[in-house]
């Protein structure tokens, strides 16, 4: 099987699996909406304050929500032996892994991007800022998916894997958070968001180029 067919196999199989466990996917989205709705309730309902902190909150909520779905990326396949079959397949493992991560992003990352305007409206963000927020999430969630995939593969077979995964991935996600939330801030300050978006885009490209190989390596290590 060539790389393209392998990516398609991973993508279609994992999307088929996600369709069977829609509840797990829905939990991620419900979590995102719940967390973003908690802040206006907990803080004073001052529109100026809320719209100022909105990008940061939306980004932290997206980060935590994407963390929530990560353990199911490889752990299930590891437990039932599918991951062995992937590693022994007559196909490049990085490509199979890329298909799986792509499916994971389509199932949990893309809906976050689409839900972000809803969160923005709750906080009274102006339409232009909502546009920037959506753009940063669209560029940033693939980076989060790849960082998470590497962490998920590295923590396979360890006890307390989910907690360890959070400790491993959250510090690495700091730059994504800074540039993601910073883009909205700087565009509202009149500085333009281009620099932040470029950096996020560079991060997305880097993670897509190196992520598959690093993740595949981590998967192979998990069998030892």
């Amino acid at each position, binding site marked *: 099987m060539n790389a393209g067919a392998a990516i398609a196999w991973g993508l279609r199989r994992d999307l088929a699996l996600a369709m069977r466990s829609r509840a797990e996917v829905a939990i991620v989205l419900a979590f995102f909406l719940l967390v973003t709705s908690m802040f206006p309730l907990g803080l004073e309902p001052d529109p100026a304050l809320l719209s100022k902190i909105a990008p940061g909150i939306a980004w932290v909520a997206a980060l935590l929500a994407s963390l929530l779905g990560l353990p199911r990326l490889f752990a299930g396949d590891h437990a039932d*032996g599918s991951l*062995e079959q992937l590693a022994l397949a*007559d196909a490049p493992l990085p490509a199979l892994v890329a298909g799986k991560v792509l499916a994971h992003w389509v199932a949990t990352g893309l809906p976050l991007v689409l839900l972000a305007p809803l969160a923005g409206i709750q906080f009274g963000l102006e339409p232009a800022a909502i546009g920037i927020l959506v753009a940063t999430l669209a560029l940033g969630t693939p980076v989060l998916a790849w960082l998470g995939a590497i962490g998920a593969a590295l923590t396979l077979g360890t006890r307390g894997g989910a907690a360890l995964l959070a400790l491993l991935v959250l510090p690495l996600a700091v730059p994504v958070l800074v540039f993601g939330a910073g883009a909205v801030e700087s565009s509202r300050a009149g500085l333009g968001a281009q620099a932040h978006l470029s950096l996020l885009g560079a991060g997305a490209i880097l993670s897509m180029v190196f992520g598959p190989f690093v993740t595949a390596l981590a998967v192979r290590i998990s069998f030892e």
Partner: protein
Amino acid sequence: MSDADVADRLEVEDLACAAGIRTLFQGIGFSLGPGQWIQLGGPNGCGKSTLLRALAGLVRPLAGSIRWRGEPVSQARERWHAAIAFQGHLPGCKDTLGAAENLRWQLLLDGEPAGPARLGELLAQVGLERQARLAYQRLSAGQRRRLGLARLVASRRPLWLLDEPTTALDAAGQALFGEILDRHLGDGGLAICATHLELPVRSPAIRLELGGRPRA
């Protein structure tokens, strides 16, 4: 040199594997040619599964060489993976998918045709035609094994590495496994089966017993 000039042959020399800091076995060596199969025996914990996993390339052996068609497998991983069908003690099936669907994804991964007619034919051969749409988690242990057999029936890989292939199978299921393995060997295939049970296979087996106590 074309593919047809080189015979399918597995040569293992002086293989040693460890579990943690203990050496499970060492000095394992054999040569396996077309139509031959190895019945791998030994007490629990002697390293049968580890040997299969090391051969497949999931576990790195401590020492020794594994050659397929004269070529070290670690240097030609893709060609090696295209030559083996590995079935460990984990089924590699998803609980939420149906029997036919599980088989379909596995066959697509193996690069075998997996149209609805072919799937139905394969399931009928292993006696699962009525369970095609049943979720994997609702199949009995023996039916799960039979689904694994369906993959082998479809497989055109020359070397099968099987870990306890007949556990949980009823008498008819074990006989079915014997037929499938005999057909594979008759076609010039090779196989290594780790098992505690007597397998109803007509082709004579090369017996390989792994040592009892693990040595330090």
